[in-house]
């Protein structure tokens, strides 16, 4: 493996990390601020991809699909919150896990009924197709660069929203003492609904960005959900800054580990054995990382000040 390839793989890892951040931003918001374990986040990711794929197919415009997807994701989130989650706030986490796991099954089956079991078509939009040469002899897909830009924009936007605006202040206050904020005359119930809706939009946006490079199919959110939980646990639950850093860290560890380990291990074990064991060990690396972080910092790298 050459140095150039190693640099490229690090870049690949960072790019994958930013994508992971997109997936986990909404999750960390809902868990950190509302103290709700929302397994249905993966379903919202899937719904976002399906809405976008459907309207991209109908209108032929990726941007128009985005404009339509955002309110649909918001409505889906609000409906879930009002119908299913509102009664769960005072229950413990196990009840929430059970209820939102039920939602996963419900949405997977609903999507199959409406769209069928086949993978839905969703190509890379024409104006984002192609590649640019950012490293010598290594053209990089434009769409992946757009994913990076969208991820960074979401991170910056959320940071500003939470720390610099009045609504962000209320959200933080509601997270530290729900009853007190309510007593001061703030409609905390509406505030939570809005936070959950925002989480749903972020999940939908991540699903939409995943569509052109993955398969849009029932259950597509579940694999991502596991990684997203690892991200927010390492980053510190509720912390946007922590989620950014943890996801890039995980992306790099996962991608670089996966590309180096099989060849590094071939030096001290057989080629065949290394090829089988390498990817297996590489896929454990992020969990080892998580265990190590939790050992030294049980609340994650950047514990959110609130909640």
């Amino acid at each position, binding site marked *: 493996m050459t140095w150039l390839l190693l640099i*490229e793989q690090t870049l690949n890892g960072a790019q*994958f990390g930013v994508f992971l951040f997109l997936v986990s931003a909404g999750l960390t918001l809902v868990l950190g601020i509302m103290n709700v374990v929302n397994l249905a986040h993966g379903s919202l990711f899937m719904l976002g991809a399906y809405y976008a794929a459907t309207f991209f197919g109908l209108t032929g415009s990726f941007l128009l699909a985005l404009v339509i997807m955002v309110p649909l994701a918001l409505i889906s989130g609000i409906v879930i919150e009002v119908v299913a989650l509102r009664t769960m706030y005072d229950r413990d986490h196990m009840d929430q896990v059970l209820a939102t796991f039920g939602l996963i099954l419900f949405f997977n089956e609903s999507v199959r009924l409406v769209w069928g*079991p086949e993978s839905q078509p969703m*190509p890379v939009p024409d104006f984002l197709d192609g590649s640019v040469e950012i490293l010598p002899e290594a053209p990089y897909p434009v769409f992946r660069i757009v994913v990076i830009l969208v991820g960074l924009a979401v991170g910056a936007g959320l940071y500003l929203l939470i720390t610099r605006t009045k609504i962000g202040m209320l959200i933080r206050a509601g997270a530290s003492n729900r009853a007190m904020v309510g007593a001061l005359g703030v409609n905390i119930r509406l505030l939570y609904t809005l936070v959950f809706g925002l989480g749903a939009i972020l999940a939908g946006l991540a699903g939409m960005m995943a569509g052109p490079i993955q398969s*849009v199919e029932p*259950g597509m959110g579940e694999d991502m959900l596991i990684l997203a939980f690892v991200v927010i646990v390492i980053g510190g639950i509720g912390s946007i800054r922590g989620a950014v850093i943890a996801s890039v860290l995980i992306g790099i560890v996962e991608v670089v580990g996966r590309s180096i380990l099989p060849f590094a291990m071939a030096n001290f074990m057989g080629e065949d054995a290394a090829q089988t064991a390498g990817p297996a060990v590489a896929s454990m690396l992020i969990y080892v990382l998580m265990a190590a972080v939790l050992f030294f910092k049980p609340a994650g790298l950047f514990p959110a000040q609130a909640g």
Partner: protein
Amino acid sequence: MRFRIALIAPALALAATPGLAQDKEIRIGYINTFSGGAAVYGKHQKDGLELALDHLGWKMSGLDVKMIYGDDQRKPDVGRQQADKLLKKDKVHLVAGITWSNVLAAVQKRVIRAKKIIISTNAGWSAMAGKNCSPYFFTTSWNNDQTPEAMGELMNQEKLDNVFLISANYQAGKDMLTGFERTYKGKVAKRILYRLGQRDYQAEISQIRAAKPAALFGFVPGPMGIAFVKQYRAAGLHEKIPFYSVFTVDYLTLGGHGKAAIGTYHTSYWNNNSDDPVNKRFIADFKKKYGYHPSMFSAQAYDMPMLVDSGVKGAKGNPNDVKAMVAAMEKADFPSTRGKFTYNTNHIPIQNFYRREVRADADGNPVIVTTGVVKENHKDSYYKECKFKW
């Protein structure tokens, strides 16, 4: 005691009811994956076999055909439960279906022990072709190794040397590489095994580009393949390093691949462009009935009721005469979507394998075109290990 017998007697009478009806109907148990992420495999096969039953008028030698479906949820233990239920409760005459080798491994034992016929409409577990072979077992598909063996041969014919290999890190993934390397004579640039269920392949794509191979051979099934093909094209590699695959690109996944699959190549037993009247009728009627293009999975499932029908004919309309059924089915004397073929001594088809490629049609949409025969009358590599035991 007398009281108990009084209860048992009507129960026995009830249990015997299916037996009374045995002269009028043939009951086929069909196990496949109808729920979860892989439900699409079950759907394509069910649609294919029901079209065949339409063509037969849901009758075989005067018997009404009764299909009883079971969902294996892609799990071997659930598949085994379904087999037990079909055999004991529904008293089926035979069991068919199954997409996954590990589910087949679990189901076949039960069916064969009950001395009933089992027909795989997809799973091509190699043990069923060799040491685990059984006279009760038939397949309307293939042995797992046959398709990658044909691919190795294709790459020899196209004089592709220095090929990069990518496959999934589990048993079937390794079997695909073994099958490929059994026939492929050129140099292997490098081989990568990716994690089952992986969704992001940028790291692998960077390695493929850096190795500068003449071509890429891959086994990336289902949604993994949809992600891989899209990402491979987005990276612009499809023109420099052509992608040759097995069980990755097919009409089952083509909707998901979209235009990204154009310019890729694969091998398959099914010549979808053949002029064979059975095949043409199958494709036309399938599109008319279901509104989508049949996949190879639909084609091989279409053959199953036809094969059973030939067996029932040979047994003179008595589906309980298993030996007569098997003897008739061995002749492969039925209208198949792949044209005329024969069964090997292990009941695996001796069949042609074709080179297929994905092209753009007049509207720019992807279509699969068969462009030639790679291997004629290809036998699997295990039949010599097969000794039938009734």
